[in-house]
């Protein structure tokens, strides 16, 4: 079940999430929505690749798709969406160009890498989940932390910063809550990867599912105003 059903749910949830985000993009525009939609599709590709591996077995193309989209690109692209939302357009465009070039380089490295699937069941991995250990070529896995540090700082940091700003002004409670959910959801897959390294079976896939559920819930919360948001202090103490 850990190997196929849970990542399948992650994949389906991610594509539904992407549909909602891209629908909003078509209605309202906003580059950040487009990039978040693309990032959500990457999340979905990662989940479906894991489900394929769990249900059917090893396939080099599926593994490469999983590693490129699920392990390397997803966090960075979601974070880039946040950059478009919060940063000046000039900076956002510059970082976008760098991210596209880096993503193309990552794709080249992943699709030309030598693979050995037997390595996924050895060493520090649980053996139940896909792992970058299957990549034997140098210069591929070293790319992942750079993308993930960028993605974590921008996605988690951006959501937390937004939540803090709304909280400090006591405005738009739904966005404060939504951003908190997004920030928590964005940390979960990375923690899942860490716990997977500690040989906790299923940790990565469960964390990925919880991560996309939190991101989805956060997005819905942030875009749906609440009935009672905030009130003047005098009224609150009545």
């Amino acid at each position, binding site marked *: 079940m850990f190997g196929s059903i849970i990542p399948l749910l992650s994949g389906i949830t991610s594509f539904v999430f992407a549909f909602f985000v891209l629908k909003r993009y078509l209605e309202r525009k906003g580059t950040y929505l487009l990039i978040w939609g693309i990032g959500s599709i990457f999340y979905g590709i990662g989940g479906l690749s894991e489900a394929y591996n769990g249900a059917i077995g090893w396939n080099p193309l599926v593994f490469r798709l999983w590693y490129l989209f699920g392990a390397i690109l997803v966090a960075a692209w979601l974070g880039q969406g946040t950059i478009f939302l919060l940063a000046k357009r000039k900076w956002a465009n510059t970082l976008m160009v760098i991210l596209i070039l880096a993503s193309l380089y990552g794709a080249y490295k992943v699709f030309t890498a030598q693979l050995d699937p037997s390595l996924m069941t050895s*060493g*520090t991995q649980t053996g139940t989940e896909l792992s970058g250990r299957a990549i034997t070529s140098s210069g591929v896995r*070293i790319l992942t*932390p750079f993308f*993930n*540090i960028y993605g*974590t*700082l921008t996605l*988690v*940091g951006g959501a*937390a910063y937004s*939540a*803090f700003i709304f*909280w400090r*002004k*006591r*405005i738009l*409670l739904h966005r*404060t*809550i939504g951003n*908190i959910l997004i*920030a*928590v959801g964005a*940390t979960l897959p*990375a*923690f899942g990867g*860490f716990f997977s*390294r*500690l040989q906790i079976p299923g940790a990565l896939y469960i964390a990925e599912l919880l991560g996309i559920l939190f991101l989805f819930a956060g997005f819905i919360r942030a875009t749906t105003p609440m009935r*009672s*948001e*905030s*009130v*003047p*202090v*005098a009224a*609150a103490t009545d």
Partner: protein
Amino acid sequence: MEENKRSKEPPRKYPVMYERLIPLALGLIVILLLALLVIIFGVALGSWVHPT
């Protein structure tokens, strides 16, 4: 003028439950973010969890 307009606005408050929970959640996120960066850097710098 904008400053004067802003200063006339009464301070606002979220409902009580959120006034208590949101600072805790924000603090937790900062801790999670720092922990995550330590983990990513740690993994990037070498397998310090299981040295091989």
